C-alpha cells in the first residue's frame, strides 16, 4: 500500500436546517482499500456519501483528496469545473438505481464511451473497441452493444453502470447500495464481479449498504453509523465477528439466518 492516503476526511458534518444529516465524521481511505458504511435507513449513510462525492456541500469539515499530481486538495475548495472533471475521470459513482447513472435512451456502447468522449477521445473505432472490451469484462454479450439499457435486465443494467464508471480507470469509486433491488443469485454474481474488478484495478471504494453480507464480502474496513454519527469502525471481520457497541451487536444479530 502507498505511504499516503487517497482521501482524508476530517470532522465532516451536514445539517439540514435543525436536523442532523451526519455529524463529525473523520476517516482516511487508502489506495486499493474498500470501506463500507453500514447502518439502518436514516442513519446518515447516503448524506455522508453525497458529501464525499461533492453532490452535497457539508456544513462543516474538510475532505482532502490526493489528486493525480500527488497534491492534497480540499474537495469543497475545488471549482465546479474541477469537481466535475474529477467526477468523470478519477472517480466513479454507482447508483442504486441504474437509471440514475445511465443514459437510458442511448445504446450501451455510447453509455460506456461517454466518459471517453468527455475527456476528448474523437476516434470512433477506438471508443467502440474500448466499449466492447468493457462489456465483456462485466459479462455483457458483445452483440448487445447497440441495444439501449431499457432492453436490459436489472442485473445487466447495474453491470453496464459499473463498466461506464470504470472505463476511465478511476482511482476512487462511490457505490450506493450497488446490489439493492437485485435477486440473490444476480447479487452474488455482481459481488463476484465487483470483487474481481476492485482487486484487478486496485480501486479504492466507499460502499454504502444496509446489507452486512455485502459489506463482509466486499470491504476491508467498515464504519457503522447511527443517528448521523459513526459509532464503531474497524476491520470488517473484527466488527462483524466481535461487535463492541450494543447497536452494532443488534445489527449483526439481526441478520436472517437461512
Amino acid at each position, binding site marked *: 500500500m502507498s505511504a499516503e492516503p487517497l482521501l482524508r476526511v476530517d470532522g465532516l458534518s451536514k445539517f439540514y436546517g435543525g436536523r442532523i444529516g451526519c455529524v463529525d465524521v473523520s476517516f482516511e481511505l487508502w489506495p486499493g482499500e474498500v470501506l463500507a458504511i453500514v447502518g439502518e435507513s436514516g442513519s446518515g449513510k447516503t448524506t455522508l456519501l453525497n458529501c464525499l462525492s461533492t453532490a452535497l456541500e457539508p456544513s462543516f469539515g474538510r475532505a482532502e483528496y490526493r489528486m493525480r499530481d500527488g497534491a492534497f486538495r480540499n474537495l469543497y475548495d475545488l471549482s*465546479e*469545473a474541477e469537481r*466535475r472533471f474529477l467526477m*468523470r475521470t478519477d472517480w466513479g459513482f454507482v447508483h442504486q438505481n441504474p437509471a440514475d447513472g445511465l*443514459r437510458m435512451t*442511448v*445504446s450501451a*456502447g*455510447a453509455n460506456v*464511451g*461517454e*466518459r471517453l*468522449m*468527455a*475527456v476528448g477521445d*474523437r*476516434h*470512433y*473505432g477506438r*471508443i*467502440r473497441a474500448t466499449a466492447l472490451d468493457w462489456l465483456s469484462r462485466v459479462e455483457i454479450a458483445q452483440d448487445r*452493444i*447497440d441495444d439501449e439499457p431499457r432492453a436490459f435486465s436489472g442485473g445487466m443494467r447495474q453491470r453496464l453502470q459499473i463498466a461506464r464508471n470504470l472505463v476511465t480507470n478511476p482511482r476512487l469509486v462511490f457505490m450506493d447500495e450497488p446490489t439493492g433491488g437485485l435477486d440473490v443469485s444476480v447479487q452474488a454474481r455482481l459481488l463476484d464481479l465487483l470483487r474481481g474488478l476492485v482487486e484487478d484495478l486496485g480501486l479504492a471504494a466507499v460502499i454504502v449498504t444496509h446489507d452486512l453480507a455485502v459489506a463482509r464480502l466486499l470491504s476491508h474496513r467498515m464504519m457503522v453509523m447511527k443517528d448521523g454519527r459513526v459509532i464503531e469502525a474497524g476491520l470488517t471481520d473484527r466488527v462483524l465477528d466481535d461487535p463492541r457497541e450494543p447497536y452494532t451487536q443488534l445489527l449483526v444479530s439481526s441478520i436472517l439466518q437461512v
Partner: protein
Amino acid sequence: MNAIAHYNFAYLDEQTKRMIRRAILKAIAIPGYQVPFASREMPMPYGWGTGGVQVTASIIGPNDVLKVIDQGADDTTNAVSIRAFFAKVAQVATTTHTGDATIIQTRHRIPEEQLRIGQILVYQVPIPEPLRFLEPRETETRKMHALEEYGLMHVKLYEDIAKHGEIATTYAYPVKVEGRYVMDPSPTPKFDNPKMHMSEALQLFGAGREKRIYAVPPYTEVVSLDFEDHPFEVQTFTEPCALCGAEGVYLDEVVLDDHGGHMFVCSDTDHCEDRRAHGHRGRLGADPLEAAS
C-alpha cells in the same frame, strides 16, 4: 386615416428594438453563445419565424433591401408573408435576388451565391439548444456550455454511426464556433455548414419561442463536429438540377406524377432562375418563352 400609421417603424416599438439590439451586440461579442432576450408576441404563430422577424425588425433601416427565403425559395407562403409584412410596416424595398439584398431572412437554407461583406443573414431558429435532445434540463445545458462539457454531443454522433454506419444527422448538424461554443446552426441542411465558416456576412440567429439570440460574426471559424475516423461530409447528389443543370448545389426532389416520375431541382430558387436567365438548361428546363407558347 391610414391604419398602418399606428405602427412604429418595422412594427416593434423603439424600446423593444433597443433591447433586442443589446442582445444582438452581446451575441456578436461572444460568438455562438445563446443570449436570452425578452421575446415579444408577434402577429404570427410561434414556429413561423417570430425570432427571425424580431431580429430583422430590430436591425432593418429605411434603406435596407430585404430578401426572405423559406427552404431556399422566395415564393413560399411564409417567405411571401414576411416580405409583405416588412414592405408594409417598414416600407422597405424587397428583392428576391441574393446579390441585391442587404438583409436576408432565412429558414432552412443559406443561399448558394456567396454572401459578401455588409450583408446580414438572419436565421429563424426553432430550438437553439444543440444539447436539448440529450439533456432536457436548461440549468444543466447552461452549465455544460459554461464548463465546455461537450462530450455528450459526440455521444449523439456515436449513436448515429452505431445505428446507421455513418453520421446520419443531415440537418441542424452541430458546429463549434471559434473553438469555444457548440451551436445549433438551425435546421439548415449540413450541406450549408461549410458556408458558415469564415463567412463575410454577419449571421444572426433568432429563436422567438425559446427567447434566445446568437450570432456568428464575419470571418469566424465554424467547424462541424465529427470523429477522426468518420469525418464530416456534406450531402452529394447524383444528378444535376433538372431545370438549370447546376451541380454542387443543394437539390429538392419534386414528384411529377403518380408513376414514380420525379426530378431534382435547386432548392435555391433565385440561384436557379439566375442561371436559367444566363442560358443554363437542365434536363427538363425548356426555354420559358418556348414553354409558354
